[in-house]
């Protein structure tokens, strides 16, 4: 196994992905993922310096829509699926203060 794949810190990755893992799972996933990544090390041997990346299977551009309303669903439709609800109006979660302004980080 080479250096790069040994770097895998499953605990850190699991935290990023918001997955709780027990010790057994951590060591199992560590083994699996290291094996997969060391197989994928084959990619580092290909000269890709002049190759552009492909993000999509189709090569179309500018797929946009006009600014017209399409309607919304009812609040009850939304809240019926919600695990916890406040005053029949809001979706309830434990209190959290965003690390940042009211809005995107």
């Amino acid at each position, binding site marked *: 196994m080479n250096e790069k794949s040994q770097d895998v810190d499953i605990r850190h990755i699991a935290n990023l*992905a918001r997955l709780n893992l027990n010790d057994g799972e951590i060591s199992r996933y560590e083994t699996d993922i290291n094996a997969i990544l060391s*197989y994928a090390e*084959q990619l580092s041997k290909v000269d890709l310096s002049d190759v552009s990346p492909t993000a999509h299977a189709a090569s*179309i551009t500018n797929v946009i829509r006009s600014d017209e309303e399409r309607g919304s669903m009812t609040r009850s439709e939304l809240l019926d699926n919600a695990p916890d609800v406040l005053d029949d109006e809001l979706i309830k979660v434990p209190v959290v203060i965003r690390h940042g302004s009211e809005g995107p980080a």
Partner: protein
Amino acid sequence: MSAAQKFVNKIDSGTIHEASDALETGQISSLELCQNLIGRHDDIDGKINGFLSLDTSQILEDANASDARRKNGKQLSRYDGIPIAIKDNLSVKGQTCGCASKILEGFISPYNATVINNLQKNGVICFGRTNMDEFAMGSTTEFSAYKKTSNPWDINRVPGGSSGGSAAVVSSGQALAALGSDTGGSIRQPASFCGVVGLKPTYGRVSRYGLVAFASSLDQIGPITRDVKDAAILLELISGRDELDSTSLPNSDFNHHEVGNDFDVSSLRIGIPKEFLEIDGLSSEVNDAFEKSISVFRSRGCDIVDVKLPSIAYAVSSYYIIATAEASSNLSRFDGIRYGNRIDRTSDLLDIYLDTRENGFGEEVKRRILLGTYVLSSGYYDAYYLRAQKIRTLIRDDFNNAFNNCDLILSPVSPVSAYPFGSVSDPLQMYLSDIYTIPVNLVGNCAISVPASFDGDGMPIGIQLIGNSMDEIRLLQAAHWFEFANEMEKNDEV
């Protein structure tokens, strides 16, 4: 024997086009058709476990409504009243849409997938929700959170995956046809394992709106059917540009009548990539079936040409990086906040995330989320994700070059035929077995798996035809021809 009885007797091998003819001529009603399929389901699905749920009262209600329409001459199409089984990752308004995962337990979808709208516009009835690998991640359907589906040809073997439930219910006569989804072979491989036809359309031909995403740039919905003609019919029903899917292609309507019988196979150039024959783990029986299929084409005057797909060697690496990266992001929405199952032990937000996702996701899903999160994480993007995308470019170039020299590419579907439960436990081994199917998803082309032969244990083996982007007509013509010619060949042998 009544005409209806005649059709019912062959219902476990009947097709959409036969049932449609029988409905149009009044030989059978939609109610009879559905009742018989439900009866078949009640008899055998306890052994097959292909369905996760089958709302019989809703189905019979829909069938009655269809019969009433037809009686009044108001049928929505010639397929009004035809029941089609639906994979559990396709959204049907008012139904559960669980992706065979515990995390979506109790979730009722408030909207229809575009393919479901398209089917219902034509009077087609949604016939049950089929089992799958959780979130379509797997090749055996063993990763369903609910049950293991058996291969109807041998109930101790896997049906393939991830659309294993769809393939098994079609193969076992519980449904005339089914919809599946294919991200790296999830329609074609189970079709091959279960001896039915599986079509992965060109990326963008069928709207993905309402398909719960596994890997957005690779996913495509497609039919699993008993013959190629049905695959063409179902493709016609579900295809077309959709304004709700930004990746939907213009001019993607399909007309199955264009797959006619007047096809001149001798004008066809079939490409054989030698790289595909050098795959480790290609079983001799699959190899034999493949060689035999080549000879079927060759014997009818087809040009068989060598094509090169040199970058295929990197396809599995590239695919599993891209697919898991996209999946890790697509599945982050399942957090127990807005819908689905929430586990709240401590009234702490972080714990809700951790506990809900720990309990809600199964082993394989977690593995892929971890891998995908890793390859996107700070410091690793360039080494993995970006490289994988560049390999994707090379593979696309390979296919473009190949299609300059041939019309269709012929290959195995899977290196092996259906195997017993539990026989593949190493994830990397499992991923490597997708080598024949995943390049097609990376490139976005269309491909079909058609039954070709059987292995020594009597398990079916399919072959794969790969077409160029949007070349479904030629793909289905050739597949249709092969289906017929191969049958003749078998009869000749007998």
